[in-house]
């Protein structure tokens, strides 16, 4: 009676953690504008984000691990976005949904933050005004891939190539 016949699966700790995290992302929709309506479309039954485990939409940052910034972030809103991000416990990920959140959109004016990555770090950007629900699903899948393979992200690969001093 060897180890193979016992009901045990062997794996690495990181892989198990990543598998759990990616399949149970609890999004916090920081919906400000039109993209929030498309996000509502993603969680409803036709496109169904619940298939990817991200069903439990939590409006409290303390109970969420995925911050989904959907919509334009203005300078008035920016301190609040930063506060919400800081209130979220680690590990956390950020998806910037729509062009307004990614780069300011077509609002190049006195009120709009030109991309939320000026304020908080972003993991996945979705372009579109608003992005189709399928694009949001693709972004969640990309994020799941990133969670599983953190060393394959572009930033990680760049950092691995040569030593960076004082960075």
């Amino acid at each position, binding site marked *: 009676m060897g180890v193979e016949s016992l009901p045990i699966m062997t794996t690495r700790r990181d892989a198990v953690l990543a598998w759990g995290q990616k399949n149970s992302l609890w999004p916090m929709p920081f919906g400000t504008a*039109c993209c929030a309506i498309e996000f509502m*479309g993603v969680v409803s039954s036709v496109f169904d984000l619940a298939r990817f485990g991200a069903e439990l939409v939590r409006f409290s940052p303390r109970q969420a691990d995925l911050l989904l910034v959907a919509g*334009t972030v203005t300078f*008035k809103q920016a301190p*609040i976005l930063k506060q919400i991000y800081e209130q979220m416990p680690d590990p956390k990920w950020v998806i910037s949904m729509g062009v307004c959140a990614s780069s300011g959109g077509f609002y190049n*004016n*006195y009120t709009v933050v030109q991309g939320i990555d000026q304020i908080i770090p972003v993991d996945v950007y979705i372009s579109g005004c608003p992005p189709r629900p399928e694009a949001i699903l693709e972004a969640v899948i990309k994020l799941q891939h990133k969670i599983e393979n953190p060393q394959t992200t572009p930033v990680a690969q760049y950092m691995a190539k040569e030593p960076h001093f004082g960075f």
Partner: protein
Amino acid sequence: MIDTKTLLPRSSQGLDSAKHQEKKDLVMVNLGPSHPATHGTLRALLALDGETIAAAVTEIGYLHRGFEKDCEAHTFQQCIPYTDRLNYVSAIINNVGFCKAVERMLAVEVPERAIAIRVLTCELNRIIDHLVCAGANLVDIGALTNFWYTFNVREKVYNILEKLCGARLTSSYTRIGGLSRDVYPEFDVEVKAVLKEIRESVKQVKTLISTNRIFLDRTKGICVISKERAISYGWTGPTLRATGVEYDLRKSDPYYGYQDLKFDIPVGTIGDVYDRIFIRFYEIEESIHIIEQVLGKLPKGPVITADKRVALPPKQQTYGNIEGLMNHFKIIMHGICPAPGELYDFTEAANGELGFYIVADGSKNPYRVKCRPPCFMNFAAFGEMIEGSMVADAVANLGSINIIAGELDR
């Protein structure tokens, strides 16, 4: 013997401020700007005495995206996508409102077919706006199932709008002088089918809520506003009609042939949350009537004016001969330049009177565009409406006045 009177909970409705002059510890709670019930970003600072709201102060501007300044920096045609993002759940109505004002300024005649399709798509957008409002409002009250019913049928309408305009939500369908493109061949059939589904959906939602004890307790008599107060606040649209004032711009200042269409205006009784939710269901029914009247009889003809100063020439002309190319170039680069003047024009949007006050100075960009958003007036009354009720009522009320932050803050 225990004196049960001291153990009974104090009634928190009808807070009598004369009896409570002594310093009390009021709890300050922020409702928003990041809150599931604040549709879009707005903030209400509440001073709570237990669960009752003693005083409320509201703050907006969290989604102020500089619409008016952007309009000054772009040509008239380029402003149309900006208008989409005003009331983003019913984008075509904003497009129509803006184009209508500019067309009046230019004295351009819009072809009949374009007008009929504008009426049809506006009413379809009105329906989906009311579905979002009702669905989101019911979710806030706790009735989650209705959200699926209303949003699923919205997806079907989105399929139609996507085939028509190219985008689900932010359509930019109208152009100055008409529409960007004609309807596709199966449009009539698909709209008829979706109207049936909308009726079915609304029936399901009404069945679930109209005799539900919890729903009635949470909405009847909650956050009432009187007719006079609503008029003083400049309310228009379904929220004003819910208070009992029979006023609809499609009947009082008709445009686009609304005077020839048969439809009723539903009117509420006292202006509580129940009235504001149910009036939207009746308005959906009326909008379906209007669409059915227009659908069978779309006039034939072009969908954009033949006026060369205003409308882009068809692609065969643009790529076929030099005059077409020059026409296209002139309109894109030098823009549509109305003569200097000022104009205020309005439409009945899903929330009320959506007006645009446009000042033109003879150049290709508008000199000033002031948008009159119906939500702005609705939300101005919010602080006053929720004082004296409980926090949960404030949340139910917020959904019922249908605040779309894109329109509120522009």
